[in-house]
């Protein structure tokens, strides 16, 4: 399967050409495109909500331990996280909701304030696509086994930015968990 980033790029380039052809000056067409954008967001929300429902129904209370590696350059020690699969999934869903709302907010500003119309088209396809490619949706909606790529904790999608930030993948080996767990990092006041 082709990496989602490449397909995204292809879609973006393709849609940019298509959006040139669409007469966005025509109010009728514009309204149609707007409706499409809203519809796509509604579908995404529905998919997320349904996934969330499944997660809550499963309520997998298996303990999940991992060590969050600090960002490159920071002097912080690796942070141990002890949680459950259920809680981890819910947190992931929360961040998905958050990012979707952020996207809508950005789009709202761009469209309503700056009167950009072109991004509407791309923004109604890309987020929809990535919603179905999300790890949580894959596991719970499509029932894929949580192994390999889908093993929790998820690795951050390899991309241009993550290479720069250099956040190492969360460690899950027994040794580093045990070392970090008893370090007593909790309750520090400066955070």
């Amino acid at each position, binding site marked *: 399967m082709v990496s989602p980033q490449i397909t995204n790029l292809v879609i973006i380039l393709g849609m940019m050409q298509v959006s040139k052809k669409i007469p966005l000056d025509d109010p009728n067409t514009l309204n149609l495109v707007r409706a499409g954008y809203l519809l796509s967001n509604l579908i995404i929300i529905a998919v997320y909500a349904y996934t969330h429902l499944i997660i809550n129904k499963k309520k997998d*209370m*298996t*303990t999940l*331990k991992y060590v969050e590696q600090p960002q490159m350059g920071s002097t912080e020690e690796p942070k*141990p*996280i*002890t*949680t*459950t699969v*259920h*809680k981890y999934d819910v947190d992931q869903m*929360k961040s998905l*909701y*958050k990012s979707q709302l952020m996207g809508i907010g950005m789009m709202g500003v761009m469209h309503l304030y700056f009167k950009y119309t072109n991004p509407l088209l791309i923004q109604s396809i890309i987020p929809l696509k990535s919603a179905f490619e999300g790890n949580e949706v894959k596991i719970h909606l499509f029932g894929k086994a949580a192994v390999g790529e889908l093993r929790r904790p998820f690795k951050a999608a390899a991309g241009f930015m993550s290479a720069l930030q250099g956040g190492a993948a969360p460690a899950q080996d027994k040794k580093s968990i*045990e070392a970090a*767990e*008893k*370090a*007593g*990092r*909790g*309750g*520090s*006041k400066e955070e």
Partner: protein
Amino acid sequence: MAAIFNSLFGGSKPSASPVPAGDSDFADFAGAPDPSPTPAISIPTVASFTGAGALPTGSSAIPYTKWYNVHERYSLSDFKQEGVILGILLVIIAIHLYGTSSNRKRAKAWITAHATTLQDEFALVGFGGRKVPTEDEIASGGLAKTLATDSLQLPVDLLKEKSPQEFSTYATGRLNVAFLDVNLTLLKRYSPLTLAFEYGASLFFDSMPAPVERVEAILYPFDGREALTVPGQLPGAHELRKDTKSSYDGFVWAIVNKETMKQLRGERYDVSITSTKDHPKLPNWATVMSESSEITEFLLTPELIKAVESAGELLDHIIITDQPIDQPSKLDETIPKKRIYLSMRLPSSGDYTTLLPVFQYFIRLTDTLVQSAHFRPEVLRKVRTTRDDTIRKLQKADDEEKAEEIKLEREKVKKQKRDAELKGLNAKAQKKYLEKEKEKEMKRAQKKQSQRG
């Protein structure tokens, strides 16, 4: 704004010309028929009614205008705005009253459910002061029982309302326990807007937890320091009690609801020095945080497991600790202080029967600890290492700070000496001295450079 003022004060428009004075400045009124006599004259005469010879007011002939009758000047429709404001105010007051009273009801339900347990265990519960029991009462058995029966009717004494959403109670006077603090935190039912905002914020910010109703109890064991905490003991009382010393080994151990364990480990220092391990005997939503598996085996009694199971997922945590909640930054803060924490969410149904066993067990936990929480040295060595490491780390930081201070002091003295020397010399010698100093510094810098290179 103007519109508001207009509607507030502008009701007089339709009334007749207000002051029918014959003021020629007003061109509008110049043409109007002059009503006579002018009130400017008539008012003083009316005002002199203290005098004996008051004029008959009726005959003073004040012209009848709407201006003088409030009920005719305004109609109800002029007060629409006030009506709306008053309505909103009433709604707000009603919500507030409803919220505070339902919170009070909930708190009362909690204390009525728990008062018997508390009074069975403690000599003093609440803020009503201690009723001195008579000898007959003691003789007839169970001082707790007599107290329980006669003061259950006044939960006002037992429970203090700190704010409309916070209630607290206090208990003391028990073997092995110095005192017990219980805090109830309820929803802000009296302010639905705040409540909605808190819910909304909790969706977006991890640092803001969603508002929940919970009861948090902190129990402070005596830990062998009865003489220090209880005033007015008879001399020698402490020696008499030596055989039943109420101290036990310090450690951190907790049963934690898995939903909150991530947050708990981040927020509290004491549980973050433990390791989390699921226990097969516990229900799958709970886990144990312990410093040693032997301590776990000792504390995880069948009775406790049963109590935890009965409380269900309403139980947040039970923590037995001797470490501070905040990460110690000074050596003083590492001194162990033993406490036992219990946190439970309140059931929305208000049925506390399932929660009572945990609460009871929590109070009686000190007895078990005092009796047999004295572990083998091998177990304690592990526990002590963690604490010693922290102490050593802090000691090191402390020493470094002290060294820095000494260094600064030394430099200061040096500079003072140099200044004094310089002062005592004449101009020529001063110049020479400064040159010499410069040379010395240059040499030192060169030496450093060559060393580095």
